[in-house]
């Protein structure tokens, strides 16, 4: 079982967290085209390698975390609070 380094709680078992998904910017609803919006809804980078994604520390501090993980190895490189500037994402990852 993976250990996720929660910035508030320290390294914790991944079962304490809920995986939310790849994080990306939310298009402006006022100007967005259907194609852009549905790309936001449905298309994933899905890389085999490092990806920035959101996890929720459900059984811990209940903070949403921006995590950098290698999907080939499940090695976690960093985890910061989504509210911090370092996260720099403007949409929940599981909006769909």
């Amino acid at each position, binding site marked *: *079982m993976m250990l996720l380094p929660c910035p508030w709680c320290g390294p914790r078992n*991944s*079962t304490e967290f*809920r*995986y939310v*998904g*790849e994080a990306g910017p939310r298009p402006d609803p006022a100007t967005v085209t*259907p*194609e852009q919006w*549905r*790309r936001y*809804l*449905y*298309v*994933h*980078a*899905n*890389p*085999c390698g490092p*990806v920035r*994604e959101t*996890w929720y520390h459900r059984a811990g501090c209940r903070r949403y975390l921006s995590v950098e993980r290698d*999907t*080939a*190895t*499940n090695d976690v490189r960093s985890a910061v609070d989504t509210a911090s500037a370092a996260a720099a994402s403007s949409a929940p990852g599981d909006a*769909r």
Partner: protein
Amino acid sequence: MTNNGSSRTNGHRLSGYSAWSLLRHGAVGGTWPRAWREHDLESSYDAVIIGGGVHGLATAYYLARDHGMRKVAVLDKAYIGSGGSGRNTAILRSNYLTPEGVRFYDRSVKLYEHLAADLNYNVMFSQRGHLTLAHNDASLRTMHWRTEVNKLQGVDSEVIGPDRIKDLVPYLDTSPDTRYPILGALYHPPGGIVRHDAVVWGYARGADAHGVHIHQQTEVTGIDVSHGRVTGVQTSRGPISTPVVLNATAGWATLISDMAGVSMPVQTFPLQAAVTEPVRPFLDTVVVSGTLHVYVSQTDRGELVFGASVDPFASYSMRGSLEFTEGIAGHVLELMPALHRMKLLRQWAGLCDMTPDYSPIMGPTPVEGFYVDVGWGTYGFKAGPVSGEAMAATLATGKPPEIITAFGLDRFADGRLVGEKGAAAVGH
């Protein structure tokens, strides 16, 4: 590489498998011919199929057999059947929720019913029936929904109560005071299990007999696109020029489509499975519980095969987890408490290409000549034959046949998703 089957030519007759030929071999000795041959990688093919699983091989088989396209290559980065085709739990059924899903999988079950004879290779399709248990009134309602849609499509499904469930599977605890009482089940007699590797090998042998080149240990490293259309693929064994490329790589679908510049509404999740030591057969029917995220069947070897829903996070790692085995054991024992002494023997994982609507993505892409047969999630193996048939028609004519038009890539940009999501979670 040499052509080991040098005495045979394209379209040669199979060295037929039958009880009689088996006896003859046993009595006289001698060796069977290779089930498929090795070939040098040619510099050009009429079509290149990426992925040597059941989808890729079935497409090649029907392409060569039904559409006369003989210069076809199937490429696999490892050995054939090394991906999901050899890692799934080999459950077949057609009791889906949407009319388009039911029609599609019903055609697949029909093809499976005659596949052994068609391929002259016993794939051991065992139609022992398929039970999807309902533990609450919401899931019971979904079972009724599926039943009614199935019946309207001519598919044999019905909702049965605890007494009949107990008759079919005496080991199930159908008493009403359990944590997850069994209120009823969707019973689907045509469902069952099949020998998954045999399906792969049967198609490979059949495709080979029709002249298809199967290239194992051949990894695709790039796809050549020029002026919006495919011109070839780059491989670990050299380049191939071709006007038609099919991506049939399941969990790796995004990586291959990325090479052609086509982005995918796909996310790769591991799906784990496990098998126990064998015991005397006691379970004829496939048993599924969506609420408990588990499906169980017993093979002809006596092993119980377990599966669950996909892992809780996206990954290309196939290492498997302890918590999967804990969960599966706990849930199986909720259903069948007497199995506690059975021992888990082995666990493994495959990669699933999950889509937003739990339905596949089949057909053309914005890149001309580049086709996809991906997005299978946890359902790919069931659909092998019908997908092969439909994708062969698509590759040969450039136009998807009616049976797969609902599954086009453009449905996502159009916002016309397929409604299988309603019955998803665990649907094996």
